[in-house]
């Protein structure tokens, strides 16, 4: 490992070292505010580092890329971690979270996500994925007085462990079949014939199961709503944005590194995308719980991503990166509103608790409206541009049928997102919830600004994301 490698790893190192330091400090100092503030600082520094250090040329240890693509996601996830920590400031305090551990775990997972987004080999993929999954196991059930938190943690753990098993064995088989962990060559092995090809294919199938679990493709999606519901709202935000987003980015890396090698997978992915979008849409329709609704809707969004990944075109990858960004921002905003409305009594997850909130807390209701509309794909928000890019890439790549289904799914998505919005503005007698802190409001404003900015003036970001992709 050279100096250059270290420099290339700098953002991740900042995160990891910051996390370790805070973990240790947390052992002596229990005051949450300075710890979380420290965590925010670390995350911001990491983002700045990622933005400032020049992208490395070669792969780090043959495992991770430090190309602009990876850098972009490092910044994104570091910023996400910072925003989530900001949102957690009051939330964690009120629930007496062990602040040192909490901050450290979030930073660790951000580091894992940053690594995963740049993984170029199966080993890197496995290690980074596992590193943040482990952190998330703990985070999901971090609230020790919460029954549903414990249950969510259990479910995530069991299923995650099984998925790890699938992944490890899948990688092992791929290695056995191709003799390499490096993605392009391993993928190339898929095409070449030979005795070991069945093993290779089997390995890819197992890997697909594991990745499908992470981004909740049908039928590996069943854990999603439960875990979303049970986890603390900021952690759900991390799950929804970082965990899914990083795997999405990894998919771009995996699939993009050897275009054409995975043509055999296309019909399968097509089918998965279709099932995911349909099931997600239909299940979200009757939901009365905001977190579950967002969980099911996240399925649909992953379906959109697959739709644009299928053509294997640069436009598609660029669109996916753009969409991941706006999706992350909008989800963060939505969960942020939920977090800031939570008080020590609990999170107002039930839609019934949201009646008329638009009149009592107009700003946050507006933020939630904007974010949900962005998720639905309303013009003027980033979500529209993102979907536009996704669907035009899909249609251009010849996947018109899937694109039409995706558009149909987004029609249904309007139905359930709008239901929430209408509830927000329905009653004249809103319940009293937490009025939120200025910091929370600031975070929400950042999110909504990003949502609108990417909708109104998406040119620069579109160009950037298009330039990033392999």
């Amino acid at each position, binding site marked *: 490992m050279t100096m250059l490698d270290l420099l290339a790893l700098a953002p991740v190192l900042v995160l990891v070292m910051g996390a370790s330091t805070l973990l240790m400090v947390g052992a002596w100092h229990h005051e949450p505010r300075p710890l979380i503030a420290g965590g925010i600082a670390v995350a911001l520094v990491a983002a700045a580092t990622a933005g400032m250090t020049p992208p490395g040329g070669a792969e780090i240890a043959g495992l991770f890329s430090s190309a602009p693509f990876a850098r972009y996601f490092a910044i994104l996830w570091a910023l996400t971690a910072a925003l989530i920590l900001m949102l957690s400031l009051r939330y964690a305090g009120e629930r007496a979270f062990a602040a040192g551990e909490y901050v450290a775990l979030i930073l660790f997972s951000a580091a894992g996500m940053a690594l995963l987004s740049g993984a170029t080999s199966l080993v890197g993929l496995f290690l980074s994925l596992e590193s943040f999954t482990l952190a998330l196991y703990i985070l999901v059930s971090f609230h020790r007085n919460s029954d549903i938190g414990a249950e969510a943690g*259990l*479910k995530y753990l*069991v*299923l995650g462990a*099984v*998925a790890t098993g*699938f992944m490890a064995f899948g990688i092992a088989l791929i290695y056995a079949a191709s003799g390499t962990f490096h993605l392009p060559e391993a993928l190339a092995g898929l095409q070449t014939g030979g005795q070991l*090809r*069945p093993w290779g*294919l*089997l390995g*890819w*199938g*197992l890997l*697909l*199961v594991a990745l*499908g*679990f992470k981004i909740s*493709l*049908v*039928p*590996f*999606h*069943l*854990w999603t*709503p*439960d875990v979303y519901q049970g986890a603390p709202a900021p952690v759900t935000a991390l799950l929804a944005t970082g965990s899914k987003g990083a795997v999405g980015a990894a998919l771009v890396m995996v699939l993009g590194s050897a275009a054409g090698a995975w043509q*055999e997978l296309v*019909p*399968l992915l097509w089918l998965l995308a279709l099932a995911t979008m349909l*099931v997600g*849409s*239909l*299940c*979200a*329709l*009757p*939901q009365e719980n905001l977190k579950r609704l967002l969980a099911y809707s996240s399925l649909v969004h992953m379906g959109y991503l697959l739709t644009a990944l299928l053509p294997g075109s640069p436009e598609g990858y660029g669109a996916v990166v753009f969409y991941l960004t706006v999706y992350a921002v909008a989800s963060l905003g939505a969960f942020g509103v939920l977090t800031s409305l939570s008080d020590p009594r609990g999170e107002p997850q039930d839609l019934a608790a949201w009646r008329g909130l638009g009149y009592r807390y107009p700003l946050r209701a507006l933020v939630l409206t904007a974010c949900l509309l962005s998720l639905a794909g309303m013009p003027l928000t980033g979500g529209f541009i993102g979907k536009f890019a996704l669907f035009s890439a899909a249609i251009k790549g010849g996947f018109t049928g899937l694109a039409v289904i995706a558009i149909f799914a987004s029609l*249904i998505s309007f139905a359930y997102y709008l239901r929430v919005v209408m509830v927000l503005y329905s009653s004249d007698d809103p319940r009293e919830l937490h009025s939120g802190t200025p910091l929370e409001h600031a975070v929400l404003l950042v999110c909504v600004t990003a949502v609108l900015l990417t909708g109104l003036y998406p040119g620069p970001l579109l160009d950037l994301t298009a330039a990033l992709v392999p």
Partner: protein
Amino acid sequence: MNQTLLFLIPLLPLACAVANMLFGMRLPRLFAETLAVCGVAASFLLTVLFWSYADGDGTRAVLGTWLAAGEATIPFALQFDALSAPMTLMVTGVATLIHLYAVGYMHEEEDYARFFGLLNLFVFAMLAIVLADNLLVLFLGWEGVGLCSYGLIGFWYQKTGNARAGTKAFLVTRVGDVFLAAALLWLFALTGTLSIGAINAQAAGFAPAVLTGLTVLLLLGACGKSAQLPLMTWLADAMAGPTPVSALIHAATMVTAGVYLLCRLFPLVSLSPAGMAAIAVVGAVTALYAATCALAQREIKRVLAYSTMSQVGYMFLAVGAGSVAGAMAHLLTHAFFKAALFMAAGCIIHLAGDENDILRMGGLARRGPRQLFLVFLAGALCLAGAPLTGGFFSKDAILLAAYTQGTPLFLLLWGAGLLTALLTALYTFRLVYLVFAGEPRGYSHLHDLPQLMRWPLWPLALLGLLGGLLNLPALVGGGEWLRHRLGALAGREIAATHGTEWALAGLATGLVLLGWGAARWRYARFRGEWDNPGSRFLLHGWGADAAVDLLVVRPFTAIAGLCALGIDRALVDATLDGLARQTTACGERLRRLTSGHVSTYLAGFIWGFLIILGWFLLALVR
């Protein structure tokens, strides 16, 4: 003088109408009434003043462009010529008198501004029909009179029936308007213009079938406004309006608009023999139909309404027989005497204390004012066609025209006309006897009659009696003034020997006498009215209303219900709602997969894995 000033003739009543509608209730009552009367009187005077403009080919005046889009350019233009000038004179003159009468008639009415506003607006619209140079301006007036008729029939809107009668009148006449509009569109498509003069000039170039089609459309359009079969059901109900309205709109002017339309387009209409025959048939049949209905009516105004229908039928017959002059002569005299009759009827109703039923009247000749009896009698004589009255000459000319056509069809129609003449005399004198003869049957004392309700009757009655002078046949040394005045517009030359004419006149006289005799025999002394299925059949206008209800209104309501409730609610909405419900139900079912049990979730894993495995096996096999 400027030709554009001709526009003052219709626009003055319009201005007064608008003023009355906007500010009428704020103005002193006298002022509002004066405004209304003066507006109409002024246009009468203007018409007299501009009389010379109608000489020769008449005068055309253009105010400006109305519509211009693509190839269609339609101006606001008037045509003041030999046909429109006398009509204008009649309309404004009769209207002036009726306005005066109305001032008296409505002196207790609170909502006078609306009444006079609408009445003035009506005069404007009627003048637009009469003076229109192109069919669209005519259509404007055509719809306008329909609107005013609607508003005035339902003037006393508190009674639902009145307003319904107005609606019925509007809708039935609107059916006719559709045909007129169709003719209008067709003519525009054929000629690229709507100018009446241009259309008449180009009509000779149309194919015979086109001509017949156009004529039939125009005829049906005319039928609506003129209450001819089959669009006649509204007129009798229209009597729900105040009497001046019935006099002006439903006797003197609006109902003759159809005749006027056919006369206006006579050069076109006359080119189609089949069309002409159709017009004559419609006229004769309506005349006969309405006369029979009039026989059994019990309300004084309904008798007059059916008689109007019948007389307008004569005018149609005249047009069909090719005699525009005959039609116009009858139109003018009929306007005078029928207006007089209606106004007298209004007086009678007023005297008897708003009693409408002639069976409950009686004895008014001796108990009521003498002059009223004389006026009514004068009008009745005209209507019955008693010799030497205006009605006698004009009706005779029509029958002569039909007879001289010579074809079997027209002879048949002539026969119907004769029969109608007999019936006319019969119901007219029935009316006279029931109202004036004998002893009072229903009312106890007589109400006062305002002065303004008395004297406007005289000029009209006199004009009716002397109306024969308008177009006095050469037979009795007359100059046929109207026919010469109309010149080229007068229609066919009626050629008949003096012998024939004398014979026909004698026949008509005989019929009048016969009718009078029969009425006298039956009604001179009141013996109650027949009440049998036959009379009820006639009373209800041969069941026309029931038939329309059965054949048109109910199916329409049913179709409307089908559209609103069947298609929209039960089909489209239910489909959509069902779709939405199904989707939600699907979602509910899929949700249940998320059972909460880890084992289920693991099973999902395995199923997914097996599917993927299956896929790869398939890929391997290939």
